């Protein structure tokens, strides 16, 4: 039976069919739907872990214990999980272990566009790269076979356009995978110097073997066509190349590390002009050039952003494509914006008003950096708001520190904010940390986390109590406040930033998109009372718009959160229905 599936959904199906019983992940675009879909299979234990490092360690434990296990993350998540990655390369596996990593060329929803293929090389772990949903499923299954055959973890790399494109997938049954026996083997699984030295030898042996076998692997295929042009490519870039070049010759690499030298040499000999079509880094190109083979790649193609068949046509074939008709009219940009009813809007209003330096973090609330709030000074990586604020204070002193806050979400705080908070307490910092607790992991599309009280399978569980947690690490000043109670929040932020000790403010109000969050429906402006002062515009709500010379509420967008009502000094924003007559 064929089904239309997202790449991520097909990965989940592949894990299911391969007999996986343990899956762990931290959500991150474009990888999130892998584990969301895995959680739908009753046969698989699945979890949202607090961060990617924990997720990989859970999967490693499960693998050593004999299960086929999988963990998934976005590219920057692999940075967090890099520590266990480099050493599980040495221990190898018992049950198969697959690490899914989803890169985001073009940075649709990321803070950098690193090329994770470099991790395969650096950690000496094989990496596969599918180019559509069918391959997502097939390669994941193949990855488990390789993992067990060569005794190593296998990384499967996706990019946004594979992870988030749907295409047809042939469904099969789940294999009956028996848990492997668990045998205590410290020489293999306890990595201290004496053991690790021996294991490193095994790693090198395995990689040589894999390299040799990659020449005959069914994952790497030569497709002969017109031999004037030969293309070496993988993943989504292969699809773009197919679209752009049509009937030429292709070497499609399904295993992107280690690379099949002999196969590459054979292919190069069979074509007149050889091109490497790859997104981001010249990963194949550098390797092929080292083999002494003449090849054209990044001298024509960009290392920045996504590729497309159009870029290939223009840069390599010199073909100008025929665009559609246009109207000579500037289309204003439409950057993403916090949703109508977003609880973060109240917090940013206060932070802007108090002109604080804001050390920010990764989540929906990063949007507070954009106009009109423009209230974020720094955003680097998950958890960095807290440690960054501490560094700011240590560099510029206590008084500057009192004009600085860290801002991060509940899930991000658990991910890696808590360690920074411990640092502040331990090293006598004075920072104020604001946790935007919206009861969910928001940006990635509503995943549970340790603070929500539910598991990935929606089972009730123990809930991390943020107040007690902050108290337990030594924060004595912990305040809980509703970010829509602007007066109260304003007062609390003033008190806590001026206090001579570190503090945590928990700004608590659920995400407006959560089921069960109900507001009263669209508001309206009372034109008789409105003075057009635009005070309500300071919060940047997309539902508040200027039409001709007056202010209106877009009733297709407004949900009636009434934050703007609180800001209006003239009582001009009313519930629709009030004074309707």
């Amino acid at each position, binding site marked *: 039976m064929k089904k239309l599936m*997202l790449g991520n959904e097909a990965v989940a199906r592949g894990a299911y069919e391969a007999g996986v019983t343990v899956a762990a992940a931290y959500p991150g675009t474009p990888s999130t739907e892998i584990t969301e879909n895995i959680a739908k299979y009753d046969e698989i234990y699945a979890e949202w872990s607090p961060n990617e490092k924990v997720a990989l360690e859970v999967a490693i434990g499960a693998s050593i214990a004999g299960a086929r296990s999988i963990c998934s993350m976005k590219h920057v998540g692999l940075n967090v999980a890099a520590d266990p990655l480099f050493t599980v390369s040495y221990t190898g596996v018992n049950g198969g272990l697959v690490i899914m990593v989803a890169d985001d060329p073009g940075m*649709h929803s990321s803070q950098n566009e690193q090329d994770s293929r470099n991790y395969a090389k650096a950690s000496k772990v094989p990496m596969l790269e599918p180019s559509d949903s069918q391959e997502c499923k097939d390669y994941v299954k193949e990855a488990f076979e390789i993992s067990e055959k060569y005794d190593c973890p296998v990384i499967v790399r996706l990019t946004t356009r594979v992870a988030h494109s*749907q295409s047809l997938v042939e469904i099969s049954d789940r294999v009956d995978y028996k848990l492997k026996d668990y045998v205590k083997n410290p020489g293999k699984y306890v990595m201290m110097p004496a053991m690790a030295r021996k294991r490193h030898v095994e790693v090198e042996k395995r990689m040589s073997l894999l390299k040799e076998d990659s020449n005959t692997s069914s994952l790497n295929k030569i497709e002969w066509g017109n031999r004037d042009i030969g293309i070496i490519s993988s993943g989504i870039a292969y699809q773009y190349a197919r679209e752009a070049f049509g009937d030429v010759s292709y070497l499609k690499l399904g295993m992107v590390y280690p690379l099949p030298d002999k196969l590459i040499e054979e292919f190069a000999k069979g074509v007149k002009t050889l091109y490497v079509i790859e997104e981001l880094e010249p990963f194949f190109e550098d390797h092929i050039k080292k083999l002494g083979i003449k090849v054209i790649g990044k001298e024509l193609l960009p290392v920045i952003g996504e590729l497309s068949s159009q870029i290939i046509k223009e840069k390599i074939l010199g073909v100008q494509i025929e665009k559609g008709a246009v109207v000579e*009219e500037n*289309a*204003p940009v439409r950057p*993403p914006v916090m949703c109508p009813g977003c609880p973060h809007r109240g917090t940013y209003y206060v932070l802007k008003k108090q002109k604080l330096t804001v050390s920010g973090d990764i989540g929906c609330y990063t949007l507070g950096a954009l106009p009109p709030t423009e209230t974020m000074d720094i955003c680097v990586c998950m958890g960095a708001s807290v440690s960054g604020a501490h560094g700011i204070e240590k560099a510029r002193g206590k008084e500057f520190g009192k004009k600085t806050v860290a801002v991060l979400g509940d899930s991000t705080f658990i991910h890696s904010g808590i360690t920074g908070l411990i640092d502040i307490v331990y090293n006598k910092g004075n920072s104020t940390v604001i946790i935007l607790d919206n009861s969910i992991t928001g940006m990635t599309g509503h995943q549970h986390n340790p603070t929500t009280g539910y598991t990935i399978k929606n089972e009730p569980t123990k809930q991390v109590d943020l107040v007690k947690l902050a108290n337990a690490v030594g924060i004595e000043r912990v305040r809980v406040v509703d970010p829509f109670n602007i007066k109260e929040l304003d007062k609390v932020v003033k008190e806590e930033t001026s206090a001579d000790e570190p503090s945590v403010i928990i700004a608590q109000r659920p995400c407006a998109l959560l089921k069960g969050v109900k507001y009263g429906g669209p508001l309206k402006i009372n034109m008789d009372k409105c003075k057009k002062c635009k005070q309500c515009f300071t919060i940047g709500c997309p539902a508040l*718009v*200027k039409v001709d010379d007056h202010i209106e509420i877009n009733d297709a967008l407004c949900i009636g959160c009434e934050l703007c009502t609180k800001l209006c000094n003239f009582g001009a924003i009313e519930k629709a229905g009030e004074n309707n007559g």
Partner: protein
Amino acid sequence: MDKLNIMIVGVGGQGTLLASRILGNVAMKMNFDVKVSEVHGMAQRGGSVVTYVKLAKKVYSPIIEKGEADIILAFEKLEALRWMEYLKNGGSYIINEQRIDPIPVILGKEKYPDGIIEKIKGVVNKTISVDALPIAKECGNIKAVNVVLLGVLAKETGIDKEIWIESIKETVPKKLQEVNFKAFEAGYGLAV
């Protein structure tokens, strides 16, 4: 018909994803190879969003390039303006008359262009404009605006109506089916 490239453009939160999924399902039922490319994550938060739906005997790239779209279905006027050059010469433009101001316009830094639909009509012969929001309201749910527009698209493609209805049935949760059928019929029946 041996191939069809359709783009659905709009503002994050307007329901373009569901529309593209129903459309993808339709293509599958017609035994085409199909690819649907979606947008998730940050852009979904009120940003400009686009999904590509390609069907043919064999589809390679999931992306539609400039000048390649047979039909563009725009959920919002400004987005229609933004994605114009993706429509091929002779293609059809279906535009919802809804207006959603982006933040730079709200802040008075930029101006929401006047007369977008008229201007597009001036250069694209087959431009169909629809005020789908009140129709969705009439059908009982303002959120069904996506399926109203899908109805208009269905008519324009000439693909058998039953396939669409079957596809909606399979894609939309049961309790929302009735309002969506109504919305689809309303869109399909519009004299445009």
